[in-house]
C-alpha cells in the first residue's frame, strides 16, 4: 500500500540512489577528497589536470565538476559529501526522535512532570532553530558529534509535543483502560501499548527532521561554523567557492544541486508517507 504511492516511489527511489552514491563513493571515479594539487587550481568543469596523491605520485585526472582554489576535485568532494549529509540527517532524526519520544511519553503520561517539561519545551521552541544550533556549535566547536547534537536539540520540542498529544488521545482508548485495570506496569503501558500506536506520525515527522537537519548542517558549514573545512561536506565546498563565485560558479552550483535534490527527495518521501500512513494528518495540511 505504501509503495503504491507515487510520492513514496519518487522520493524513496531518489533517496535510495543517493544512499548508493554515498556507499559506492570510492568506486565512482573519485579521488581522495582531501587531495589537492597546486597545478590544478580553479579548473572549469570537464577540464583535465593532474592530482598528487599522498605518496607524492602525480596522476592524470579529469575534473568533472572542476576544481576549487586549492586544486581539489569538486566532483570527489561532492560525492563524498553525500555521506556526511545523509549521515547527519539520519543521526539527527534518530536522536531528536528518541529523546522526544521519552519526553513526550513522560509528559503525556506522568501528569506531575507535564507542566514543567512542556514550559521548558515552549522556551526552547521560542528560540529559532538555527540560532540554537549556531550557539551550541559556538560553545562546543564543530565536530560530527557536536553538529549532530546541536541540530537535533531544537527539533526535540516538536517531537515531544507530537508524542504528548498522541499519548493524551491514546490513553483514553479502551485497550489502555483495560491494561490499567489488569494492573499492567506503567512502563509497559507506555512502551508496549501507547508507543506502537504513535509510530506512523513519528515516521513522517522523522523524515521532515531529516530533511531540515541536512539543510541546517549545510548552512552551518557554509557559514563556517559547522564541520571543519577540510571535511568534504556540501556546505564546506560552497563556503570555499564563495570568494570566487563571479568567475567560478561551479563550486556553488554542483553541491547546491545535490543538496537541493537530497532535501527535495526526503521531503517528497515524507509527504508520500504522510498521505499513506497518516490520512488524518494529510487532510489537515
Amino acid at each position: 500500500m505504501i509503495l503504491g504511492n507515487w510520492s513514496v516511489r519518487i522520493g524513496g527511489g531518489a533517496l535510495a540512489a543517493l544512499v548508493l552514491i554515498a556507499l559506492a563513493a570510492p568506486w565512482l571515479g573519485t579521488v581522495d577528497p582531501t587531495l589537492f594539487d597546486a597545478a590544478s587550481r580553479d579548473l572549469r568543469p570537464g577540464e583535465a589536470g593532474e592530482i598528487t596523491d599522498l605518496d607524492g605520485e602525480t596522476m592524470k585526472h579529469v575534473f568533472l565538476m572542476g576544481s576549487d582554489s586549492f586544486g581539489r576535485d569538486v566532483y570527489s568532494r561532492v560525492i563524498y559529501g553525500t555521506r556526511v549529509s545523509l549521515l547527519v540527517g539520519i543521526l539527527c532524526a534518530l536522536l531528536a526522535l528518541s529523546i522526544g519520544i521519552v519526553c513526550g511519553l513522560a509528559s503525556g503520561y506522568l501528569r506531575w512532570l507535564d507542566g514543567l517539561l512542556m514550559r521548558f519545551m515552549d522556551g526552547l521552541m521560542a528560540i529559532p532553530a538555527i540560532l540554537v544550533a549556531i550557539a551550541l556549535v559556538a560553545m562546543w566547536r564543530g565536530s560530527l558529534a557536536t553538529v549532530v547534537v546541536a541540530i537535533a536539540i531544537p527539533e526535540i520540542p516538536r517531537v515531544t509535543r507530537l508524542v504528548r498529544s498522541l499519548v493524551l488521545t491514546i490513553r483514553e482508548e479502551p485497550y489502555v483502560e483495560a491494561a490499567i485495570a489488569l494492573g499492567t506496569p506503567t512502563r509497559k503501558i507506555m512502551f508496549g501499548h501507547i508507543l506502537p500506536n504513535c509510530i506512523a506520525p513519528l515516521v513522517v515527522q522523522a523524515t521532515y527532521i531529516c530533511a531540515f537537519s541536512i539543510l541546517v548542517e549545510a548552512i552551518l558549514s557554509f557559514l563556517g561554523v559547522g564541520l571543519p573545512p577540510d571535511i568534504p561536506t556540501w556546505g564546506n565546498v560552497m563556503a570555499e567557492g564563495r570568494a570566487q563565485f563571479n568567475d567560478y560558479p561551479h563550486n556553488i552550483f554542483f553541491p547546491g544541486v545535490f543538496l537541493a535534490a537530497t532535501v527535495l527527495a526526503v521531503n517528497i518521501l515524507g509527504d508520500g508517507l504522510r498521505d499513506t500512513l497518516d490520512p488524518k494528518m494529510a487532510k489537515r495540511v
Partner: protein
Amino acid sequence: MLTFILRRIAATVPVLLIVAVLVFLVLRLAPGDPAAILAGDAASTEQIARIRTGLGLDRPILAQFGIWIGNVLQGDLGESFYYKTKVATLIGQRLEPTLALSTLTILIAVAVAVPLGVLAAWRFGGWFDRALMGLSVLGFSVPVFVLAYILIYVVSLRLGLLPVQGYQRIGDGFWTFLRHLVLPSVTLSVIYIALIARVTRASVLEALGEDYIRTARAKGLPEIRVLVHHALANAAVPIVTVIGIGIALLIGGVVVTESVYAIPGLGRLTVDAVLARDFPTIQGVILFFSFAYVLINFLIDLSYVFLDPRIRY
C-alpha cells in the same frame, strides 16, 4: 479583553524566562572559564578578575543568574570584547537593515502567497493547484543560500539588473535602498511563500465547503467577491497564525541571507560573533531575536479579535 491580555502576558513570561535561562546557560556550559571567554583572547588577568567579580562568578549559580537577568532587564546585555562596545548599542546599530529586509520579505511573501493559495483552493485538484503544491515542496527544499547565488548569477551577473550585494541605508535615498534590498528579500521570501500558500490553500478550501459560501453563490454574488469577502475573510486566522510562526524560519533565513548579500544586519552580526566566539554578543542577539519572535506572536494572538468578530476575550 483586558483579562485576556493579562492572561496571555502571564503565559508569555515563563516562556521568556526559560529562554533567558537557556541563553544564560550557553556561556556556563561552554568549556573553560566564563570570565576568560567573556574577556576575549587578548584580555589581561586584571580584566578577567574584574569581569569575574562584576558578574559574581565566584558566587553560586543562582546568584549569578540573578545578577545577569537584573542587568538584562535594565537593557544591559554586557560588552562585546570583539567590537569594543555595549552589545545593546551594537544591536541598535544593526537593527535597521534586518528590519528593512524582514519587512519587505513579509510584504512580498503575503502579496504573492495569499492570491496563489486562494487560486489553488478555488481550482482544487486542477493543474494549477497541483503545480503550486509541487512548487511549494521545492520551495521548502532549495536552501536559501543556493537560491541566493542562483538569483545573483542570473539577475545581477548575467542580466545586470540589480546590485550583487551590499546595503544602502534608507537615509541615503529610497531608490538605491530598495534596489539593494529587492534581491535578498525575494530570496528570503521563497520559503515563506511556500509556507503561506499551503496554509492559505488549506484554510480557504475548508471555508469554501461551508454553507454560507453556497448561500453567497446562490444569491448570485460574483465569484471574486465570494472568494475574497466570504472565503478568504473566514480563512484569515490560520493564515495570520502561520505568518507569525514563520517568523522563526525568517530569522534563520536572515542569518544566511545577510551573510550571502553582505548586509550589515543582526544576522550577519550573529555569524561574525560566533566566528569570533564573542559570547556576550551571541547571547544578546539570541535573546533579542527570541523576544522579538515571542512578542510578534503575542501581538498576532491579540489581532484575532479584529480578524474574527466571533472571537471575544
